């Protein structure tokens, strides 16, 4: 009995910070919806049920879930988490950001080829001088199939203009 209560008090002293962050996020999301819908209901207050009704309900529920999550965080009710290795995640996110920024300027093949190489790097293939050309050639082939044959509108850059 005493041991049980001791472990309980020990865990309750250290709330789960990630879960608390989720609670704050949910609360923030609820606040955002409240703020946005109050603007709406000012515009459409002639009817009881309007475009703001459902967002208000959702926001209230999110607020409730935020409180529930916070309580669960203090009780440490969340499952154990596996250790996360951050560098691979950074490689892949970096690849996605690069693709996003370069898509308009450099075209589909170069931008997505870089994403390809960076993702491979995230999984341990760090020889970028090999993976970048491989990625670009592969993406060019994909571009030729999808933009050429299936007529998908994929942005063209200098490389693609060599073909079309």
């Amino acid at each position, binding site marked *: 009995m005493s041991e049980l209560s001791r472990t309980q008090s020990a865990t309750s002293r250290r709330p789960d910070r*990630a879960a608390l962050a*989720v609670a704050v996020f*949910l609360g923030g999301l609820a606040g955002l*919806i409240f703020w*946005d819908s109050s603007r*709406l209901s000012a*515009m*459409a207050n002639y009817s009881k*049920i*309007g*475009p703001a*009704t*459902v*967002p208000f309900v*959702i926001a209230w*529920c*999110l607020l409730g*879930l935020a409180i*529930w999550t916070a309580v*669960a965080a203090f009780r440490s*009710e*969340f*499952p154990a*988490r*596996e250790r*996360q*290795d*951050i560098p*691979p*995640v950074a*490689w*892949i*996110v970096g690849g*996605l950001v690069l*693709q*996003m920024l370069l*898509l*308009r300027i450099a075209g*589909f093949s170069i931008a*997505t080829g870089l*994403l*390809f190489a960076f*993702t*491979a*790097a*995230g*999984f*341990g*293939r760090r020889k970028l001088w090999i*993976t970048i050309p491989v*990625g670009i050639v*592969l993406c060019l082939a*994909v571009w030729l199939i*999808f933009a050429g044959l*299936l*007529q*998908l*509108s*994929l*942005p063209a850059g200098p490389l693609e203009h060599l073909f079309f």
Partner: protein
Amino acid sequence: MSTFEFLLQGIGIAMQPMNLLYALVGVTLGTAVGVLPGIGPALTVALLLPVTYRLDPAGSLIMFAGIYYGGMYGGSTTSILLNTPGESASIVTALEGNKMARKGRGGPALATAAIGSFVAGLIATIGLAFIAPFVVKVALVFGPREYFALMVLAFVTVSSAFGDSTLRGLTSLFIGFALAIVGIDQLTGQARMSFGVPDLLDGIEVTTLAVALFAIGETLYIAAQGATGPDKVEAVKGSVWMTKQDWSRSWKPWLRGTLIGFPIGAMPAGGAEIGTFLSYATEKRLTKHPEEFGHGAIEGVAGPEAANNASAAGTLVPLLTLGLPTTATAAIMLAGFQQYGLQPGPLLFATNPQLVWGLIASLLIANFMLLVLNLPLVGLWVKLLTIPKPWLYAGILLFATLGTIGANPSVFELGMLLGFGLLGYIMRILGYPIAPVVVGLILGPLAEQQLRRALAISQGDPSVLFTSPIAAVLLTIAALALIVPLILRARGRGQVLSQLAASED
């Protein structure tokens, strides 16, 4: 016309050469993508949606049917040859199937999975054809409040009835709802949650969200596990053909699996997993070889695999007849319908019978094609499994972004893809289920529409929602499905429920 005539007419449509070609391309692509480790049926369908963009609605939906069945089949190959318990629908197949493969009986395991899937798919698709018109008749008397109650029930079962936490399931669902209200309100035309950003006025694309959560979130999660050794792919040794004994031990589990899987899929309760677990438990109890269970019993592959496919076909009952997706895969298929301005539901059966029956018939054809295609091509699928992780995931992200760019080549859309990818990654770390977000996004607006219609009819009186007997019963079931698991978990009996969790499809 009777169901039989409709079905014959549908087969006529599906047998047109172009449509046969679409079905063939669909099953091949679906299997090839579904086989890749880490890609479940939901992601398979989301990734391949762009391939169908330029086809006419009928052709595209027929290809889709092939992709859906192919993806389901591919997943079971993966779990037999590569022990990946991450994919929930075929997790049970992995239990016995992988053990069989390790004993050098991978061939018969694949064969019983393939033939079992075929038998189940055949019976369940015919079941779908005969049940659908009946459900449509029932659905015609449904008004807005009954639809709303039905959707509430689907929300509860998808998010919180199964899985290991009511809190996290509901949170996922409400994140989906929050994303669903972004864009122009369908009834009044006012912009909500779009903060003056024109890109947000159209709302958030279901495919963008699904691809981001499943493909990018999953890739980030796998990458963050660091360098783990290569997964061991079991070689298929010896004959792929089943012996006489294999046949006699398989046929009953196939039929039982179908009987268990189909009704579970057809109910608005979601998840192919429940059926597979029930089927596994049944086979374990009825078998004459209990000592083999856990060491590669063929019944343990045949039954669950049949149940899996039968409930995949069953899921199409609420999807086609009520427009109600109960799994993430069905939610993405609904998005596929919507891109052609088609809303599945009782009306679609009346306004576009050729399309619906053509689709049902092509499911039958896809099923035949898979049987013919898969056993001879097993060697090719095994090769796909051996793609090293860096290339595999680099390729997955290539195609994930390709789909988004192809649908909407804007930097903003790619930014959303990245943002939701990170959201999916964080949710994955913290143990939040993904499927409820996707279902919430697509079903949320439909539920809101029905709710507001119901309330408009009653001039704002919310009691109208409970006063129809059908709606009252549905809402009561929904309330029970929310409360009973809460009590079970509080009493420490949650393990059973978390085993039944529908984590992906």
